[in-house]
């Protein structure tokens, strides 16, 4: 038995009571060296301290429970009934109102070009077959295109995407480094996808899947740039 309690002396009890009084503050992170010192000397108080720390740790790490599936089913039903879930518009429409802080011509132009290019590519699979092996779409907003069939769209889209990217690059220093790295990685990955699908489209003009991927890659790039610009604008 420890000396404190075995002796039952008033002095020993006083130390334990003082420990009790200061324990809460110690657990809250206050600097109370006497609490730790007493806990090391008195097994009873030491056990109490260890137990409380163990309970705190275990409570903080209790696993999270998933709700039953019916919870989402009920929420979904309510959202539908209240008209909160709405029929979706095409993805690029969603970004239109979010680009208000930019000069309107850039995002609107990019989206309009994108829509026209997509329509051209998807509806008229042979219409973009150009004489010779010419570049008819931009690779990453930096490439100059000279396609015979869609020169206006091509140049315009290149210019607008370049403008968006330039605005973003000039402001990306405002982003947190991790976020900036994520956007850079995303944009690099999309540029690679655009480049790759362009090659496929040029090799196989009738490949509708490749055309679809190309339009999607451009669309994703506009979305990522819009999202990035939204972050830097905050």
């Amino acid at each position, binding site marked *: 038995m*420890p000396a404190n*309690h075995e002796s*039952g002396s008033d002095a020993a*009890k006083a130390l*334990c009571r003082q420990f009790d009084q200061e*324990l*809460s*503050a110690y*657990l*809250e992170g206050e600097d109370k060296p006497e609490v730790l010192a007493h806990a090391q000397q008195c*097994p*009873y108080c*030491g*056990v*109490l301290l*260890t*137990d*409380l720390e*163990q*309970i*705190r740790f*275990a*409570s*903080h790490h*209790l*696993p*999270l*429970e*998933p*709700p*039953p599936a*019916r*919870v*989402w089913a*009920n*929420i*979904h039903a*309510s*959202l539908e009934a*209240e008209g*909160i*879930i*709405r*029929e*979706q*518009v095409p993805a690029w429409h*969603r970004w239109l109102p*979010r680009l208000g802080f930019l000069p309107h011509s850039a995002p609107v132009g990019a989206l309009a070009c994108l829509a026209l290019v997509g329509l051209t590519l998807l509806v008229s699979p042979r219409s973009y077959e150009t004489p010779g092996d010419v570049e008819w779409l931009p690779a990453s907003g930096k490439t100059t295109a000279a396609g015979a069939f869609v020169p206006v769209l091509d140049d315009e889209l290149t210019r607008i995407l370049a403008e968006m990217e330039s605005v973003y690059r000039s402001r990306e220093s405002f982003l*947190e*480094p*991790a*976020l900036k*790295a*994520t*956007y850079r990685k995303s944009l690099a990955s999309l540029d690679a996808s655009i480049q790759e699908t362009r090659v496929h489209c040029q090799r196989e003009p009738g490949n509708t899947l490749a055309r679809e991927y190309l339009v999607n890659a451009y669309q994703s790039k506009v*979305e990522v740039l819009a*999202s990035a610009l*939204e*972050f830097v604008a*905050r």
Partner: protein
Amino acid sequence: MSTDKTTATKAVTETQQIARAQQGDEAAFEALFSAHKRRVYSLCLRMTGDTAEAEDLTQEAFLQLFRKISTFRGESAFTTWLHRLVVNVVLMRLRKKGLQQVSLDEVDSSQEEPVKRDYGDDDRRLIGSIDRIILDRAIAALPHGYRTVFVLHDMEGYEHNEIAQIMDCSTGNSKSQLHKARLKLREHLRRDQRKRSGEAPREPKRESER
């Protein structure tokens, strides 16, 4: 991928999901629900100690969230916004049921009898890791006031000043309730441990016997 990158990617994804949910996108609502359902439900469950109540509150909290999501402007973290909303929903429900004190200050003295320190009791500590089920049961068995402060502070990471604001009490009271809650939990766990080891429950020693 590093933690920072993962966090940044999640933030970007969540921002996009929020923007889509603000446009009424069904998939975005579902994605936001899936991302937060476990934490929200667990919070409701631990604050109420009742599965049926927790399901109902989870539903209510998410519905309130989705109804208000168009007002979310990103000034605060979405998770913080959501969890504050959940806590408010739970507290409102408890108040309506008359279970939750309006002010902890008013009822501090009427809480269950405080845990007495049993000087000279055996010095065996809680053995090994604490059983999760027993701990969950012990938390559910706490009086409401103790439980709320304990869940908010030790499980959800709220600061005492935040709890004091939410619960309309002083920070000192919040600290006091938390300490008592921890002592209660310990008492419950030790009692359970004795029961499982086949040992008879001990009566606390009287002051004069020490």
